[in-house]
Every structure is written in C-alpha cells, then in structure tokens.
C-alpha cells in the first residue's frame, strides 16, 4: 500500500508541480518505499495511455445558433396580470349589469326573470355590448309592461310610483357604465402596449448586440496566439 502521507507529493511530482524541498524529501522516501515507486511508475504509464487517447474532435461551426430563451420580466408579468384582472372585472361588471348579481324588486309573477342568452357571444358572433343592449331593452319593455299592468289594476295607489323604474334613468346609468368601462379598457390597453414596446426595445437592443458579436465570430478567421 502507498503511504497516504506521500500521496499529494506523488501527484505533484507526476505533473511537475513539486517544490524543491518536497521533491528532495520524496526522492529520499522513494529510495526506501517500493510501493510508492510502483504507484508513481503506474501513474506515469497511465498518463502515457491517456495521452494516446486524443479524441478527433469535429470542427466547431463558427456561427453560434441563437435560441429563444425565457427571461423573467416582472414588468411584463405585472402588466399581463393587470390586464387579466381588468378583463375579469369588466366581465363581472357586465354580468352585474345584466342582472346576475342584482335583480330589481317588483316584477310581477307573470314576468319571467331575465337570463343571459344560452349561447356565448363568441359562439353566436354577437358582441357583448350588443347582448347587453338587447337585454336592457328587453328589461325596460318588461318594466313598462308591469307598470302599465299596475296602473290598470291599482290606479289609486300613490306609493307604487316610488318603486317604478324610469326607463330613461336606466339607459343613462347604462351609458355611464359603458363609458367608464371603455375608459378603463383604453387606459389598460395603453399601459400594456407601453410595456410591450419597452420590452421589444430591450430585446431588440440585446439581439443587435448579439448579432454584432456573431458577425465577429463568423469573421474571426485569423488564428490568434494566446500569450498565456
């Protein structure tokens, strides 16, 4: 067995990185230790074998292939999340306006509760705004019909006027909501577009820099001598 204390010195000697004193000490040890001598000889032979195994490495293509690489962009992510939240909010608002969240009191039993059309706007090819408008018109018509019905059956009751919903007021409310919705949408769209433009600018700058480097790579035919 090789003396473990000399292992580092053997390796240093093998690769010519041994100090003068350590070398002298190792030589003295090797005079008396056949096991270490054998190990060192074995290592020398092994190095010769390894040196024979120089792989035939194919020439490297001189153009570096660019790949799309994912980069985490918090600003873009925030913008996307914000956009999603706003769209979800807009959807919820539209649902509320259609009466899913709030049904005005007072429709008679004869009037059926308003419901959303079964088919989705995408499936029917009709825009959400159009569906909202139709639903509002339908509801106003139903309210007017119920008011007329109430007027015929109880003409002397003055309290019922408080519960009646004015069609023009409802239209005005709807128009106000629509304006607010459109304003929010426009602001969000501007923000998202700004973020996209900024991101494109950054990516473009980066690609320009990389392309310039790659051109140099492709043209670097002159073999330089490394001084080191």
């Amino acid at each position, binding site marked *: 067995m090789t003396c473990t204390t000399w*292992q*580092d010195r*053997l*390796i*240093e000697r*093998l*690769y010519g*990185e041994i100090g003068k004193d350590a070398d002298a000490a190792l030589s003295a040890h090797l005079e008396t230790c056949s096991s270490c001598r054998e*190990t060192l000889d*074995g*290592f020398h*032979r*092994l*190095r010769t*074998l*390894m*040196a*024979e*195994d*120089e*792989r*035939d*490495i*194919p020439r*490297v*293509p*001189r153009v*570096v*292939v660019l790949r799309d690489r994912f980069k985490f962009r918090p600003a873009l992510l925030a913008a996307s999340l914000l956009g999603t939240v706003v769209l979800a909010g807009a959807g919820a608002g539209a649902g509320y306006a259609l009466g899913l969240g709030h049904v005005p009191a007072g429709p008679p039993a004869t009037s059926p509760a308003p419901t959303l059309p079964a088919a989705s706007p995408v499936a029917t090819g009709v825009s959400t705004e159009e569906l909202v408008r139709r639903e509002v018109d339908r509801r106003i018509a139903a309210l007017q019909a119920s008011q007329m019905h109430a007027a015929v059956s109880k003409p002397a009751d003055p309290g019922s006027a408080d519960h009646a919903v004015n069609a023009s007021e409802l239209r005005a409310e709807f128009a106000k909501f629509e304006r607010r919705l459109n304003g929010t949408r426009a602001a969000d769209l501007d923000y998202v577009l700004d973020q996209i433009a900024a991101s494109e600018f950054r990516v473009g700058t980066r690609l320009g*820099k*990389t392309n*310039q*480097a790659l*051109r*140099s*790579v*492709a*043209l*670097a*035919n*002159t*073999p*330089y*001598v*490394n*001084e*080191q």
Partner: protein
Amino acid sequence: MAVPTDEDLLVSLRSGHAESLGVLVARWEGPLLRFVSRLVDRPDDARDVCQETFLRILDKAEAFRDGARFSTWMYQIALNLCRDQSRRKRRWGRLVIVEPGAGAETPKDHAAPETRASNPAAAYEDTERRGAVRRALSALPPEQREVLLLKEYEGLKFREIADVLGVAESTVKSRMYAGLDAMRMSLAGLGIQ
C-alpha cells in the same frame, strides 16, 4: 502590436466591444469543445454546451472579477452547464447505452500510417486499449473525472483547478490521486499496464 490577453478581451467586451467575443471564441472553441465532449455523452450536447458557454460569457461579462483568469471562469461556466445537463438527463431517466468498443467518434491515428496499414492487429489493439482507457475514465465519479480532465487534457495548474471547482488545492490533489489509482487498478484488471 501586442496580442491582447483573454482578460483584455473580456474587459473590452464588457465595455461594449462585442467583436472581442469573436476573438475569444476563435481562441477557446477548440479546447472547450474537447473538454466538454469528454464530460457529456453526445457530440450535439457538447456543441450546445459550448455555444451556451459563450452566450453566458456574453451575458455575464459584467460579472467577471478583475484579476481573475478568463480560462478559469470559462471552465467554471462550462462545467456547471455540463452538470446541469447530467442532472436533466438523470431526471428524465435517459439511458445511454455505450456499445463495448464503440468509441462514438473516430479515434485519431497516432501510429505512423504505414505501421497501421501493415499491421492491422496492432491497430486493433491500439483501438481496444484507447477504448478501455476511455471507459475507465468514464466510470470514475464525476468529481474525480472533472479533476483529471482539467489536469490531463486541459493542462490547468492545481491552483486553477481548485478555483474552477471552488475547492481546496489539497482536495484537488486527493481527488486526482483517487481517480488515477482507480483507473490504474481498473486497467490492470484488463491486463493493460
């Protein structure tokens, strides 16, 4: 005009002269591919790792410490990428079957052509021996193989290998000893001395 050192070129790259990368690639693509192709199984993977290494150098030029050696830094990046790739392969349970004696690449002709032509048996023996050395090297634990490759084929000093791997110089030497000893034993078992 003095030839710029690698570190000069990196400083120049850092200050926005992208053409310096071309010179660095021209200098180092060969040694780096040789090193990486001994650490990964497939030549395509080796090329990918080399390309990724240079892209990382371009990306992270600002992170290069003044006074450090470029080659140490480059080998560090390449080694980490090789390790990542091995981890990915392990994760996906990919099985690489190496046929006995099938060196994936053409072995280089070291003997004189006339000797080989006149003595096919010797040529066959050479090929077998080289295959055995390669397999013995591949069978080593990664930490021993990395040290051996950096020393034997890349010619780095012990201090530089320690820097690349982030370990003490004595650790490098003991890994070196263990690796060489394991290879020596394994080849002796095959009658190769």
